[in-house]
């Protein structure tokens, strides 16, 4: 059994086979019908001739018969090439009259049985075909035979049949092929809604689970499949939603116990223990916060019309992280543009991305060095440090969730850069990671400038 890759190829191939068989069968049937029709016409004509011949038979006084043909009929039967012939035969088989030169019967083997009979015989080249009718003239019963030589070049009916094969028969093939083309067009038209549905399905992703396939234009034969897919998507969407909610809820639920822990530590008497515990709680809180950010990002939809000030966002984050950085002996500097740089996107999300880059940089830059923010007019923000930099091999790893160079390092969840990447994706922004000439890493986010 042949396996077809597409419904269209199945239709084309099977249709071509059907066309081939049909065109052969149709020509055969038509030529057979044509043959039958010409035969009937010929037979009827021969019977007519026999009947008109019989009218000219008359009985003599001695019981013998005579045939007096008018000149028009004589001419018909005396053509030199002998297209037509007649004979009259009695019950004993004796030929009474004949148009033939040898005066024999046209059909020697006339069974002389029925009222009308259609007979065929061959005489050299000639294909003689005709009728034999029984007539009673006077007291004698005779059979009047009338025949035509179908091989004679004046006979057209056979030629028509032959011609049909050569010319007319071929017409069926293009007609059937044209039908095939029309079929393909109809089929493609019918499948159009399915192609549209497929394009819609392309956009479904974990971030866009709300998309459903359009059912309205789908042919009713395929509709159950499309509806079933939509229902499956509903269930998946629900699963994703539960997953997101779980992450958010889990992070939520952790916050109150963390607050209790933290407040309890704040009221401890020994400030040194309190400080050490603080750092642990700080690290844990950050992970919880980042988990919530991730959960929020998964369901976040960016309004394409939103515009944010990249310079303002960078300044705010620089100010936000400065107290912590200074406390840890690191400097913060904001360079580049000093007036608003408008980019497409959500200000709060852009701030989150910059904050995560900044926290990362502060963690890696050595004491007494600076983390620099550079905002450029073209919609780029760069965050750079004086840390160890990022090797080629690590560049693809750093954006993976929970990846850390040193798994024992404190205060780093390995979530920050994956958040940055997700925010960049949402904004159609690109991330560039480089090492600085004098040491350190530089992360650049290139946002799309908003035209204002």
């Amino acid at each position: 059994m042949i396996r077809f890759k597409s419904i269209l190829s199945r239709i084309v191939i099977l249709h071509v086979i059907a066309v081939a068989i049909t065109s052969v069968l149709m020509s055969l049937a038509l030529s057979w019908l044509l043959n039958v029709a010409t035969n009937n016409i010929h037979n009827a004509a021969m019977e007519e001739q026999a009947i008109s011949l019989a009218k000219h038979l008359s009985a003599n006084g001695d019981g013998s018969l005579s045939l007096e043909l008018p000149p028009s009929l004589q001419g018909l039967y005396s053509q030199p090439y002998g297209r037509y012939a007649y004979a009259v035969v009695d019950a004993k088989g004796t030929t009474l009259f004949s148009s033939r030169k040898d005066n024999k019967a046209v059909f020697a083997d006339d069974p002389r049985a029925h009222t009308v009979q259609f007979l065929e015989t061959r005489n050299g080249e000639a294909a003689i075909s005709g009728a034999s009718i029984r007539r009673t003239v006077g007291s004698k019963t005779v059979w009047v035979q009338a025949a035509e030589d179908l091989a004679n070049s004046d006979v057209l009916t056979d030629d028509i049949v032959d011609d049909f094969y050569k010319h007319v028969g071929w017409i069926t093939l293009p007609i059937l092929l044209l039908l095939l083309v029309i079929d393909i067009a109809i089929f493609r038209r019918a499948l159009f809604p399915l192609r549209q549905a497929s394009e819609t399905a392309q956009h479904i992703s974990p971030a866009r689970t709300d998309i459903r396939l359009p059912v309205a234009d789908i042919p009713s034969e395929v509709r159950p499949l499309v509806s079933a897919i939509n229902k499956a998507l509903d269930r998946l969407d629900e699963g994703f939603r539960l997953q997101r909610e779980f992450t958010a809820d889990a992070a939520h639920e952790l916050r109150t116990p963390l607050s209790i822990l933290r407040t309890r530590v704040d009221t401890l008497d020994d400030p040194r223990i309190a400080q050490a515990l603080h750092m642990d709680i700080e690290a844990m809180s950050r992970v919880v916060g980042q988990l919530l950010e991730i959960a929020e990002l998964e369901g976040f939809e960016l309004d394409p019309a939103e515009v944010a000030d990249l310079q303002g966002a960078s300044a705010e984050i620089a100010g936000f992280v400065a107290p912590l950085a200074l406390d840890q002996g690191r400097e913060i500097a904001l360079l580049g543009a000093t007036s608003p740089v408008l980019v497409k996107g959500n200000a709060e999300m852009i701030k989150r991305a910059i904050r995560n880059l900044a926290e990362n940089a502060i963690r890696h830059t050595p004491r007494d060095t600076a983390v620099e923010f550079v905002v450029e007019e073209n919609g780029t923000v760069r965050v750079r440090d004086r840390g160890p930099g990022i090797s080629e091999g690590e560049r693809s790893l750093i954006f993976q969730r929970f990846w850390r160079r040193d798994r024992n390092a404190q205060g780093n969840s390995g979530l920050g850069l994956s958040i940055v990447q997700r925010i960049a994706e949402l904004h159609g922004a690109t991330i560039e990671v480089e090492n600085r000439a004098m040491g350190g890493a530089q992360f650049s986010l290139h946002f799309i400038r908003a035209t204002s």
Partner: protein
Amino acid sequence: MRLLVIEDNALLSELLAKGLRTAGYEVDLLATAAEARAVLMTTTYAAVILDLGLPDGDGLSILRELRHRKDPTPVLVLTARGGLQDRVTGLRSGADDYMVKPFALEELVARLEAQLRRPGQQLGNSLHIANLEFDLRNRQAVIDEQPQVLSSRETAVLELLMRSKGRVVSKKQVEDHIFGLGGDVASNAVEVYVHRLRKQLSDKGARVQIHTIRGVGYLIAEEKRDPV
């Protein structure tokens, strides 16, 4: 000064009360929205610390009712919901400040003080960092209990920085604060005053440092001596 803490988690509530009492406040504790509504109808507090997730209702509705009655009591909202939308809704509903759990008790107290010192909440009197004190009533800097003489512009800069303790003050804010809206300001005027103030404080033995965050602004903090 009496504060009202509305928090349904008994443990956190107790610990908060302990911390706030240590910081010198009297504290009333409530655990449900219904109790809070009833109490707030009759009693006025210096400030309210409100947890948003209460067992019998949304804390935000209490806040809205309070503001609907034109009650200006400062409200500091505590929440486990740190989402973008939650934050915006919280502040729009009339919260004066918003803290996401887990928070540092120290920061809570600091923010509370900032609220209580706002105009119309004349309850605070001085600000402290290490051995430096700023008397808000007399607008005077005090180092090691010794009142200091500073120029009016230096005093203005110091007041702004100390009011924003723990936060960066932008250059623009300093400019607006010392010069107001009138007149042209030389582009380096703020740098000059900050530089002078820094020198004065250092000369007079204040253990504080005014950090410059390039491109952003200034931050006052306790001087840190690098462990050598």
